[in-house]
């Protein structure tokens, strides 16, 4: 039993990035602080690597048992949902739905699904924080932006902050995706302070060469005390990679979306804030555009 469990674990964990801690496949669930390495094994250049030997690490049997219970529970739920219908919802709901709420911010658990990052990772001076708003009804992303570039000899520009949804994980940490093929627009209810944000949609590509490709579009906030309802059709998102818009544009495929993020980088030093009420999807029947940009080859070889 233990052997088969270990094999299962290895099979599922081998699909993860191979850059992770080598000890992880064998005793991952037993380590108390293994979760922090799950999403990113990025180590900021200049910081020392975490080389605690095996005998110093904290093993916890309770964590292991919790992990087993949680994952088998998720596995059972997945199997049951598969029988019920796509993603656990019935067929009527799946075929007739025109709106869906994907993320709403009503508790700390909802906030934990998002990761906040900023300039500080590369040595800049911006700060960004995420907290619940008044009456626990909204999420407030606030902080300060600073365009002072870090003096490490290679960075030219700086001053950004971003928030990104965590990747969906199924039973035993398998990769799961959002399937938004029923919809054609993104609906956001936000209240900003007039700053222009960018929305990024991460789709998981088949080839690892394309793992940095990103579909982005702008979100212009009006500012002011009134809530702003923004609808952005998915046909408007353009393909970019590493912050550069690509020459060859392709429409966004909605069936394998891994996460969504917001970025602020408008080169204005100072405090910012953005309140998000909820993020939803909309099937706008009046929107018939397939793709907003031309798909022909931009620089033909001839």
């Amino acid at each position, binding site marked *: 039993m233990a052997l088969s469990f270990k094999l299962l674990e290895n099979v599922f964990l081998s699909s993860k990035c191979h850059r992770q801690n080598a000890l992880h496949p064998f005793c991952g669930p037993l380590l108390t602080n293994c979760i922090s390495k799950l999403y990113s094994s990025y180590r900021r250049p200049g910081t020392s690597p975490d080389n605690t030997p095996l005998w110093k690490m904290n093993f916890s049997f309770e964590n292991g048992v919790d992990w087993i219970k949680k994952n088998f529970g998720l596995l059972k739920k997945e199997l049951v949902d598969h029988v019920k219908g796509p993603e656990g919802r019935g067929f009527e709901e799946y075929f007739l739905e*025109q*709106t869906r*709420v994907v993320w*709403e911010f009503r508790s700390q658990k909802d906030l934990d699904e998002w990761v906040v990052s900023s300039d500080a990772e590369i040595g800049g001076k911006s700060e960004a924080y995420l907290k619940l*708003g*008044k*009456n626990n*009804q*909204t999420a*407030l992303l*606030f902080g300060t932006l600073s365009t002072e570039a870090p003096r490490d000899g290679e960075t030219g*520009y700086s001053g950004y902050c971003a928030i990104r949804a965590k990747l969906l994980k199924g039973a035993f940490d398998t990769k799961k995706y959002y399937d938004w093929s029923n919809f054609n627009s993104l*609906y956001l*209810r936000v*209240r900003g*302070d*007039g*700053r*222009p944000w960018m929305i990024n949609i991460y789709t998981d590509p088949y080839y690892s060469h394309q793992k940095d490709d990103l579909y982005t579009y*702008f979100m*212009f*906030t*009006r*500012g*002011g*005390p*009134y*809530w702003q309802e923004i609808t952005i059709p998915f046909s408007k998102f353009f393909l970019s990679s590493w912050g550069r*818009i690509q*020459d060859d544009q392709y429409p966004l495929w909605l069936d394998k979306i891994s996460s969504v993020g917001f970025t602020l980088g408008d*080169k*204005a030093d*100072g*405090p*910012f*804030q953005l*309140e998000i*009420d*909820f993020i*939803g999807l*909309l099937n*706008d*029947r*009046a929107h018939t555009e397939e793709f907003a*940009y031309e798909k022909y080859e*931009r*620089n033909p070889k001839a």
Partner: protein
Amino acid sequence: MNCVRKLLLARELSARPGVLRQLAPGLDLLRLQGSSCAQRFWPVPVRSHSKFTPAVKGDQEKDGESRDGSLVPLEELFDRACKGERNKAAFTRAVELFCQRDVRRRGHIEFIYAALQKMPQFGVERELDVYNKILDVFPKEVFVPRNFIQRMFNHYPRQQECGIHVLEQMENYGIMPDNQTKFLLLQIFGAKSHPVRKYQRLMYWFPKFKHVNPYPVPVPLPQEPIDLARISLQRIAADLSAKVTVYQMPLTDILDSGKEITQPHIVGIQSPDQQELLAHHNPDRPVFVEGPFPLWLKKTCVYYYVLRGELLPPGEKGEMLDSERNFYYPMHLDLDLDRGPWDDEEFDVDEAEEGPIFAMCMAGAGDQATLAKWILGLQQNNPILSQTPVVFHLAPGPRELLAASDSEPGEEEIPQSRRAQQEC
């Protein structure tokens, strides 16, 4: 083989423009000058290491050579040209000075990088003709590849990178290049080079994204505080029928006794919907003046104050219109003729609710006296304010929009009658 070594050497030399390294033994540059190598590169005079000392005075300085052989730092070139005032004329004069002193434009890459860094200091970073003048510094037709080998190997890579940097600075400031830029780039680098490709990308994407902002900020932004307040209030009111009123103009008065009185400006806005909401407000409940909240317009941050009521619990909401009150015609129509009955665009979520907003204003100073003047001004059109207690929730610095409604420092409740006495 020999040609490849020469190419590598040429690449090495062009890679380190500011510092002349000691040449590898066995390679004589003067011999290479007359070789039949296809690539043409600068005939660099051979110097020994000891004579050359790079003067590093700061981040921006790189060395350039003048005809008489002395090393003139580029920093000095800009200082000499500006003669005190830093403006566009001085900058163009500096660029012309550089172009005039050498027909081969030695050290043009360092000069262009230094010029790009100096542009914000001279205030010319948004001028297209200055960028064209900088691109003019490149010698023409030298970097255009002439055969397939040159086209294959990134011809003059440092110069192409420099051209790309110029275009990237234009892109960062949002300046659209024009025909002259295109002709210059074609003349300098040829049709399929990286700078020309970047120019083509700029010309493709900039027009697409120029008008994508549904709430555009006027360019240039007015400096007058009243005009700025008017524009920003109209923006945040989100209602085209809202009216902007100037309650007080900014005034700096010197009394006879020599004391200076400054009056900050107060500009307020209220739309008919807000007026109606305020008219229906229960005078027993207080209204709150909250602020200051930040509003960003490109790079300027302005602050506004809000007059709002508190959110009523569902039991105390105003009387809903009874749909059966009138049988002859509907009192309240909510027809959305764009959509049919099969379209259901409601979201299954309780939206965050807040109290109604009655008016907004922007003032030069955020103290209670100024805002009290605003409330008095609002009373002209909303007589109910004379009976409603007004609570001031003012923070010393800008606050989040959803501030907690518990007692904060700076809160004061003044019934209207007492304030009216104070004013008199």
